[in-house]
């Protein structure tokens, strides 16, 4: 049953996960990976055949959930953005040693150019760091085909397989032909006789690491058909990976002379060194087009005879994403020119939605700091989410934003070093992601920090997925040992501004950690009714709980 539909690159990976017969899909939202999970989630819900799609509290939890499904003998897909893989790296790197039982595919979406991220790290580096294979599609159809292939590879080689996308492919929408969907088939859990492979105490881990290294030649052989060398009459060649492949092939449609260039086309790593050597023997110089880090370029550059051009010698910019325009310039093709407007255009930066509760929370914080005469010395540690927008004008309210959960731990560290007031601002979902352990340490250290949890009840930035901390924030805070007297729940609305300012000022002056929860639902999710059903059910449950109590003797 072939069916052609339009899909984003990340959605194609999600579809392939479903069609490969996964039992469970897991992930944590993060641009540009989010729609991959949402796609497979929708398919799983529609199928209603006992499969699971579950957002996790963070990427490490998501990865461990997937590894558990694999252990239980089923196929599984786990999705995250590139910086999310840092959070899951402990699980990912060690799953290389345990290996997998049911096929495990990891979708990672990188963000070269940092459209919506704090860095442009290259996940291919982490795959080679873990001695694991990575497939790199360059079209929407390849996103699908490679993901299906990744499940087969994962089971044949008994390793997790990464499918690496970049923003431009993740958010490229194109026709997709799907194959017939397989139903999940279970292998049964890892047999007791093999359980020692999964127990990474040092004696087993040493053995499993040697097994992993011994597997590398098989891995090269299994991936061999995904990489190829295409001869051409020129002594100048190109090495292409990921979107470099996609951009080059399209340029060759418009500039047929490019078809004379010998090409090394890479869609999977590790790459067989013999393939690279054979290609290099046919050329005197090579231009490398790969997205993000100069990994292929560095490798080819180690062979001294051939001149290698790319990001390291200035043929391409060292940072940022590739584009057809950059390829043209590097290939010596005439640039196409447009006529820019005869007017200086101001940047239109993203901003808070009109009526967003985060703005009310920041205004209360800033006024409270001002009233205490603490504006100059106070430092506010922000976190990752819509509220990061407060770093820019007109609020200019944040002094540091690093990674998920850093707000609380950095504020604690700064407070322990004597900085006062030290304020952390974190969203509810980010708090559940990695703020919780930081709060536990804040309590243990007795640090003088004021923590604002901006609870909009959803993961706002990535499309208003329900937060894992939904309706649980106060209980989580109290559970970490914060005394009730040090916790307040406020409503960020203009009419509560004066009361909120007072509450923040009191918290700032109180010794030890104090927590202010500013709760008002994200206006985007409110408009879309994301939590309408949830809230209706909660209300009904509370009502029936009351009734039950009334009939108790």
């Amino acid at each position: 049953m072939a069916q052609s539909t339009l899909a984003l690159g990340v959605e194609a990976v999600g579809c392939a996960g479903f069609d490969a017969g996964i039992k469970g899909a897991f992930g944590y939202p993060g641009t540009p990976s989010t729609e991959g999970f949402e796609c497979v989630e929708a398919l799983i819900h529609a199928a209603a055949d006992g499969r699971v799609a579950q957002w996790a509290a963070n990427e490490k939890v998501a990865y461990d959930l997937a590894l558990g499904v694999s252990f239980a003998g089923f196929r599984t897909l786990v999705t995250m953005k590139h910086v999310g893989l840092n959070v899951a790296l402990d699980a990912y790197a060690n799953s290389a040693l345990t290996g997998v039982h049911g096929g495990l595919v990891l979708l990672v979406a990188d963000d070269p150019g940092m459209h919506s991220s704090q860095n442009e790290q290259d996940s291919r580096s982490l795959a080679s760091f873990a001695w694991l294979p990575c497939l790199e599609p360059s079209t929407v159809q390849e996103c699908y085909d490679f993901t299906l292939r990744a499940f087969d590879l994962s089971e044949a080689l008994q390793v997790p397989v990464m499918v690496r996308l970049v923003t431009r492919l993740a958010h490229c929408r194109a026709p997709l032909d799907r194959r017939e969907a397989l139903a999940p088939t279970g292998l049964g859990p890892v047999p007791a006789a093999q359980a020692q492979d999964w127990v990474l105490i040092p004696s087993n881990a040493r053995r499993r690491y040697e097994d992993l290294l011994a597997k590398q030649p098989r891995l090269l052989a299994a991936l061999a058909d995904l990489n190829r060398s295409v001869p051409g009459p020129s002594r100048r060649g190109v090495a292409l990976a990921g979107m470099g492949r996609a951009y080059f092939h399209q340029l060759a449609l418009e500039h047929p002379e490019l078809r004379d260039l010998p090409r090394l086309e890479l869609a999977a790593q590790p790459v067989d060194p013999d393939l690279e050597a054979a290609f290099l023997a046919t050329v005197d110089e090579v231009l490398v087009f790969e997205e993000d880090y100069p990994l292929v370029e560095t490798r080819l550059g180690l062979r001294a005879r051939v001149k290698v051009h790319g990001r390291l010698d200035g043929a391409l910019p060292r940072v940022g994403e590739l584009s057809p325009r950059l390829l043209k310039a590097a290939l010596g093709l005439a640039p196409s020119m447009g006529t820019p407007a005869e007017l200086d255009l101001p940047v239109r930066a993203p901003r808070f939605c009109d009526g967003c509760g985060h703005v009310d929370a920041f205004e209360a914080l800033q006024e409270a700091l001002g009233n205490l005469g603490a504006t100059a010395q106070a430092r506010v540690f922000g976190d990752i989410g819509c509220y990061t927008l407060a770093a820019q004008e007109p609020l200019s309210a944040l002094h540091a934003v690093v990674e998920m959960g850093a707000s609380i731990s950095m504020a604690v560290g700064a407070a322990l070093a004597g900085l006062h007031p030290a304020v952390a601002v974190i969203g509810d979902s980010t708090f559940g992601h990695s703020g919780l352990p930081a709060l536990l340490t804040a309590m243990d250290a007795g640090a003088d920090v004021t923590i604002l949890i901006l609870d909009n009840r959803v993961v706002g930035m990535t499309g208003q997925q329900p937060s894992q901390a939904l309706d649980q924030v106060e209980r989580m805070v109290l559970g970490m040992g914060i005394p009730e007297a040090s916790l307040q729940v406020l409503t960020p609305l203009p009419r509560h501004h004066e009361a909120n300012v007072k509450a923040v000022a009191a918290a700032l002056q109180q010794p030890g950690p104090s927590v202010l929860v500013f709760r008002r639902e994200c206006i985007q999710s409110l408009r879309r009714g994301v939590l309408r059903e949830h809230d209706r059910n909660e209300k009904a449950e509370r009502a029936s709980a009351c009734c039950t109590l009334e009939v108790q003797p």
Partner: protein
Amino acid sequence: MSALRIHGIVLSGVGGQGVLSLAQIVLEALRRSGFHALQSEIHGMSQRGGSVQAQVCFAEVPLTSPILDEGSADLLIALEPLEALRHVAMLRPDGHLVASEEPSADMAGYPPLEDIYRALKAVRGACLLDTEDLARRLRHPQAGGMALLGMASRHLPVPEAVWQAVITERFAAKGERVITKNLEAFAAGQGLVPARAEA
């Protein structure tokens, strides 16, 4: 072997105006008209009221690059005048611009409107639409995008029946009234072209 012509469309506006939704209609319409088409869009941070753009490429053979080079777009459809100017360099010398005159000026340093209009009218083939007025006349606050698409449709090789079908399906989940309103806005845009086109 001769070189091949790849066509490009840029759609621009402000986060929340429906740029991505409009781009998907264009993509589907081109695909159903027998072309190989790809669309590129950026999600995330920029959707919070920042500049948003999407690109659609199409040709008679399969394509692999979802993004266009400067000076290579045949058509720019802009839902906001400043966001039109931001992307005019994407147009080919013989390209066409279809833009809303209605500013979304809630930002620092928004240039005087008359300067923006002057710069837009200097673009060859520019077609401007007072979407605010049109929305009022059609009693449909969101009419602007579909009307601009209607105006732009004369530059796209899509049969009328395909437009009708794609727009109808796009809004099917929202009911008959929403479908009718959007078809009406599209038709209004189609009708406006000759009167407002500039040399």
